[in-house]
């Protein structure tokens, strides 16, 4: 297997284990490339990529842009706040206008679930989902699994707990798909109001107690409390959330083993994790960021490879 089974990366739900293995294998090579004195390869010099961000992003956008530039692609950036979307242009019109400028691949983040799926059916370009609403964020899940594999040797058989706001988290959903696909055991831990009703249908179990969850797991992937997606109060106060589900050093020291701490960022320091945990040597948060560039290079490279030159 040296070709992806899909033409777009819309979500982990649409790919298989062999795809993940291929992406990781390719990312291994790119990780070596980005640690060279000159961190660039010329592979995509005749490919143009548009980054369409209809929702705010810092690290994902930077990471994608860096990945694209490290592959020598031409990159154009678009953010909704400065665009014609404000003037009422539809998504397809925006995308088609950009495609008229001969763009080969679109990386899109959008506040609406399924926006990338919709776009992939209506425009002639490869689509990479950089987060669609509360649905999926596939490259984040891939880089999370890649970081676990790097730290612990493999993902299969490992116990991973995802802590926090599962309901609003595209990172959680993509991670659950990716981890299950690779044979990991997954639990979720968070306030009942922030756990989707049928979450167990995905083959994960619920652990309401943070201490028990940490005692059980090899890796804790701690999610951000997404205040911007909460129109109502899902828990009484931030202070109460921190007391019940926040991870601090003394809690971590009390479980009697060293687990790996992950966070997709941005961190609310002092809310879901304290600074001493985020900066501890068992935290691989910054490795996740570095691996993010390698993973995105791999995804883009493998999709671009399918765009045959004629």
């Amino acid at each position, binding site marked *: 297997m*040296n*070709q992806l089974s899909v033409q777009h990366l819309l979500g982990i739900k649409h790919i298989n284990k062999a795809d993940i293995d291929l992406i990781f294998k*390719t990312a291994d*090579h790119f990780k*070596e*490339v980005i640690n*060279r*004195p*000159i*961190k*660039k*390869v*010329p*592979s*995509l010099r*005749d490919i143009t990529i548009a980054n369409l961000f209809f929702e705010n992003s810092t690290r994902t956008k930077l990471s994608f842009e860096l990945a694209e530039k490290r592959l020598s692609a031409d990159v154009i950036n678009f953010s909704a706040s400065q665009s014609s979307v404000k003037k009422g242009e539809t998504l397809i019109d925006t995308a088609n206008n950009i495609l008229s400028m001969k763009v080969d691949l679109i990386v899109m983040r959008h506040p609406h679930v399924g926006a990338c799926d919709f776009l992939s059916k209506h425009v002639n370009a490869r689509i990479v989902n950089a987060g669609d609403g509360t649905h999926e964020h596939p490259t984040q899940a891939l880089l999370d699994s890649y970081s676990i594999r790097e730290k612990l040797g493999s993902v299969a058989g490992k116990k991973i707990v995802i802590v926090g706001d599962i309901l609003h988290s595209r990172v959680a959903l993509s991670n659950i798909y990716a981890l299950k696909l690779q044979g990991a055991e997954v639990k979720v831990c968070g306030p009942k109001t922030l756990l989707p009703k049928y979450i167990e249908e995905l083959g994960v179990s619920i652990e309401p107690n943070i201490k028990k969850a940490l005692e059980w797991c090899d890796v804790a992937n701690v999610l951000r409390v997404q205040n911007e997606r909460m129109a109502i109060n899902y828990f009484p106060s931030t202070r109460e959330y921190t007391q019940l589900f926040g991870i601090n050093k003394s809690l971590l020291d009390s479980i009697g083993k060293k687990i790996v701490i992950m966070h997709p960022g941005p961190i609310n320091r002092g809310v879901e994790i304290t600074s001493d945990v985020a900066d501890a040597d068992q935290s691989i948060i910054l490795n996740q960021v570095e691996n993010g560039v390698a993973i995105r290079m791999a995804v883009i*490279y*493998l999709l*671009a*490879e399918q*765009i*045959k*030159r004629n």
Partner: protein
Amino acid sequence: MFGTTMSKKILLNSKEINIILHRLACQLIENHNNFKNTVLIGIQPRGTFLAERLVTILKDEYHISNIEFGQLDITFYRDDFRRREAPLEANKTNINFIVEDKNVVFIDDVLFSGRSIRAALTAIQSFGRPINIELLVLIDRRFSRHLPIQPDYRGRQVDVINEEKVTVNWKERDGKDAVYIINK
């Protein structure tokens, strides 16, 4: 393994290869003395076997220690990306040193169109600016170049037509050392 229309004839046997490897090692010593400022780079995937063999000979038989040796993969530098039927598969690059101000010797098994070496010339720039770059090949297929690239050290020069393929087998991987010309 081979169909009826395919013929396979031996070009070099293991004894001949061994003699050639020793000659190439001596030629390298002639130009690079103690290899103090020289690095050997095997081109992935097939050049690395030849490079490893030469390093072993230089170390064991000519007592040259501390030879800097790396493996360079050129997949991401090739000029036929998106132009091939089957996707390319990358190999490991393993260069733990900077080639700035060094003499670099590229080592590959067969020189054909010269395109791999063109890619390697670009790829090596990621590791610094060498003083000079030389090319060592086991088999030089004459009259088949697409680019103005010629070897500095050659094991054997052969004239084969385009439909023929030259394959190098190595003991470590294929069971015995041999070079074949295969007629498709």
